[in-house]
């Protein structure tokens, strides 16, 4: 064999490849690529670049048009709202507003603003800017009024200048001087202040929004598209400013040198998009990233043993077993109570949930107003469950369907398939035979929430801010195909509670509602699973927050 001959043999095959390559490279695009900035300059002995793996791209850099966790993770660094949260809790605390006063029976709020604060584009943050933001939301048009785009304004403020005006909670905003803004609501809403801690209501630079056409959100058709502002020109008052977004790959933020507060150690944040959960874990193990969110229960021990820092968020969510009261057997409250008694929540948590998960007795975590110990606890009791089934006329149990998603892991539902297996075995022990109905996540949510042809299912919710209506109001504010449950008294109580202006009285009302729900069992609260973040050992402090109000100037690095 000569070397020359061998080479020629290979050349033939290689030519195939090369010619194809030439042909294909004709399609290549030229793209103006932004630069990532200098990588990790040192402050003392600390590498001041912090890299975090996100599970997807943010939907939008304009938080008013976002509702997903990845958008908010980025927005929290760039923007600040009038109201923030107390560290480590979901309770509202002053942020860009130093204080506020409520008057006229909870319909007028006077915000006293922090002075000397500037947006990252150099324009002043003042009362005019506050009103510009409120008026912008109120004047959303067309597709912006859809829940797919301006979700939070739509669902919380309910009406706009040109649509559903009679339902609108917001009325007007007036600037009194530079540092006082007066916001008037059409009716009292106790949830107003906590709701303002959501990134969707963060203060954005009116100048920048105008310059980069933040409200141009649809193309020739009505379909939404990202504005120039939302694609790459967001401007807030936060400790980090936007640098680059390479869709699908990464987002880079840089320190805001003019930030009014603590600038922290970090000079540059890189959010890398890694969709695959095991790939995020391996990227951390290979020290390519400093941390990632929602560590799978199976990975906790491995990472801990390898010396990584695991940090838990106080759970602000609930996982429940949904029951369709339209099904013959399940329409009987005794059957639903029997199901409650049949489930050993502690065993379930121990076997399939991450360590630190709390047992759920009601549909809100204990840190939310309205939580009460005074509810029926349904301690695990097989005999009692069997007895109730007998009383209901099903001494030998019955058969029903049980829907669960197969391809998803949510903060409130880390391991759906395992949870399903566990619960169905427990139900089997009291005679309730379930027919497994696994389903793809995209199909699942619309199926179980969209029609009443199902028996049991699993779903949950992560709260946005400290307000009971943000939990129970979401589930039981009316008859829904998901629960097929109809109780006019409960629906009215929830509506009344939402409208109350006195917080003390409202809390009491919610405590009654919790008891009512517990007696009626429209669904069974199972657990408050703990979400865990994993970090490289150099991350010594991370400001974990139940509502993910985590701003990276609070992170401490050791090297």
């Amino acid at each position, binding site marked *: *064999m000569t070397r020359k*001959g061998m080479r020629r*043999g*290979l050349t*033939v*095959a*290689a*030519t*195939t*490849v090369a010619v*194809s390559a030439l042909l294909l*490279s004709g399609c*290549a*695009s*030229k*793209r103006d690529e932004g*630069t*990532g900035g200098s*990588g*990790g300059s040192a402050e003392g002995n600390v590498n001041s*670049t912090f890299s975090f793996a996100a599970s*997807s791209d943010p*939907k*939008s850099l304009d938080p008013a048009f976002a*509702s*997903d966790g990845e958008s908010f993770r980025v927005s929290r660094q760039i923007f600040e709202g009038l109201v923030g949260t107390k560290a480590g809790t979901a309770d509202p605390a002053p942020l860009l507003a130093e204080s506020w006063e409520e008057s006229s029976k909870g319909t007028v709020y006077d915000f006293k603003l922090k002075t000397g604060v500037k947006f990252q584009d150099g324009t002043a943050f003042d009362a005019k800017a506050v009103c510009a933001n409120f008026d912008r939301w109120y004047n959303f048009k067309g*597709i912006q009024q*859809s*829940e*797919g785009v301006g*979700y939070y304004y739509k669902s919380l403020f309910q009406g706009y200048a040109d649509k559903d005006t009679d339902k609108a909670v917001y009325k007007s905003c007036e600037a009194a001087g530079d540092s006082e803004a007066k916001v008037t609501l059409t009716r009292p809403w106790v949830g107003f202040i906590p709701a303002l801690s959501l990134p969707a209501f963060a203060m954005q630079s009116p100048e920048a929004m105008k310059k980069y056409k933040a409200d141009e959100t*649809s*193309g020739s*058709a*009505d*379909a*939404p*598209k*990202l504005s120039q502002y939302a*694609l790459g020109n967001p401007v807030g008052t936060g400790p980090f400013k936007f640098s680059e977004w390479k*869709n*699908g*790959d*990464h987002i880079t933020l840089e320190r805001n040198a003019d930030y009014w507060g603590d600038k922290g150690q970090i000079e540059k944040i*890189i959010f890398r*998009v890694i*969709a*695959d959960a*095991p*790939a995020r874990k*391996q*990227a951390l193990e290979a*020290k*390519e990233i400093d941390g990632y969110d929602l560590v799978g229960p199976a990975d906790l021990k491995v990472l801990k043993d390898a010396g990584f820092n695991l940090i838990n968020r106080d759970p602000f969510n609930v996982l429940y077993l949904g029951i369709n009261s339209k099904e013959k057997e399940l329409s009987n409250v005794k059957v639903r109570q029997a199901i409650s008694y049949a489930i050993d929540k502690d065993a379930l948590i121990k076997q399939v949930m991450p360590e630190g998960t709390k047992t759920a007795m009601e549909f809100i975590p204990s840190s939310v107003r309205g939580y009460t110990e005074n509810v029926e606890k349904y301690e695990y009791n097989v005999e009692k469950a069997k007895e109730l089934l007998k009383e209901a006329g099903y001494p030998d149990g019955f058969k029903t369907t049980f829907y669960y998603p197969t391809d998803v892991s949510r903060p409130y539902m880390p391991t759906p398939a395992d949870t399903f297996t566990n619960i169905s075995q427990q139900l089997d022990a009291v005679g309730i035979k379930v027919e497994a109905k696994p389903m*793809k996540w*995209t199909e699942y*949510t*619309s199926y179980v*929430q969209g029609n009443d042809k199902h028996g049991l299912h699993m779903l949950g919710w992560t709260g946005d801010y400290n307000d009971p209506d943000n939990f129970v109001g*979401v589930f039981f504010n009316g008859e829904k195909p998901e629960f097929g449950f109809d109780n006019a008294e409960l629906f009215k109580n929830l509506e009344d509670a939402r409208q109350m202006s006195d917080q003390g009285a409202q809390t009491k009302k919610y405590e009654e509602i919790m008891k009512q729900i517990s007696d009626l069992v429209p669904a069974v609260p199972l657990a408050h699973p703990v979400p865990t973040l994993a970090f490289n050992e150099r991350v010594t402090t991370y400001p974990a927050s139940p509502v993910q109000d985590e701003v990276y100037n609070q992170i401490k690095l050791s090297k």
Partner: protein
Amino acid sequence: MLKFIIKRLGLLLLTLFGLSILLFLWVRALPGGPATAMLGERATPEAIAAINKAYGFDRPILEQYVTYMGKVITGDFGNSTQSQRPVLTQFFNQFPATAELALFAILFAVLIGIPLGYWAAKNYGKWQDNFSVILSLLGVVIPVFFLAFILKWIFAVQLGWLPTSGRQDVGLDATHYTNFFLLDGLITAEFDAGWDAFKHLILPGIALGSIPLAIITRITRAAVLEVQGADYVRTAKAKGMTPSILRDRFILRNAMLPVATTVGLQLGLLFAGAVLTETVFAYQGLGYGIAQAITNADYPVLQAYIMFIAVIYALINLVVDLLYGVIDPRVRVK
């Protein structure tokens, strides 16, 4: 020759037309739909209806198809429902990534597969042959995601030689003109950036190339076995040809015909089949784009991407057919 190419391209257009109808129906049969994916788990029926109306997904399917094709003819493939960016922009950002990865993988498969297959055939029935057969079996049966996990665990986590994910170190201040990162590294003389991009190609390239490697090895082995037993090889040997001439001119050249077909087909498949590899390596290519689009029932992206991949596949096959002529004068198109 030109007539042949025009005829093939005409057939391609016809195929694409048929495919566009099938695709249009198929993506709409996906469970969930884009509105549900956009709105998350608490979507109200009204919100879903509003989104469907905005995108025109509530119109009769024939009307949707006609509107869509009308736009496609003008080069407008619509906006992704997930990223809200033009599909075409997204495609041209992701295509170079997949092209680099697919070419790396096929080169890896060809450079190892052909010599390995030849070596096996030459040592037919001996341990070398068994070794290569077992190796190629393993290449086919090991799932890509598992191989990827193992490769990353060894070379990235344990040894720290190669990166686990991405296309290039984000911290590098690399300039990109073509979005072919290797090429960009050469054009801009930013060799460190090019080298870094190359390092990011190695593990996904090997994972992706494992299946074509196995197939090419087996095809080469079979082809060489067949050719080396042919009469003309025996005759050439009897005439006293040197072993190297025998191998190059008589055996390999003839054995290369089926191999070239396989390489072409495999390369086409790599463009379509990089879904898993790109996902587990967080590698921003077409496969990753398709995986995301399926998860989010992103109709515009799915429709366009699958069409584009079909075009790429067809063009690669056309090139392979033309290359036949280079290898085998008997089938040269006049």
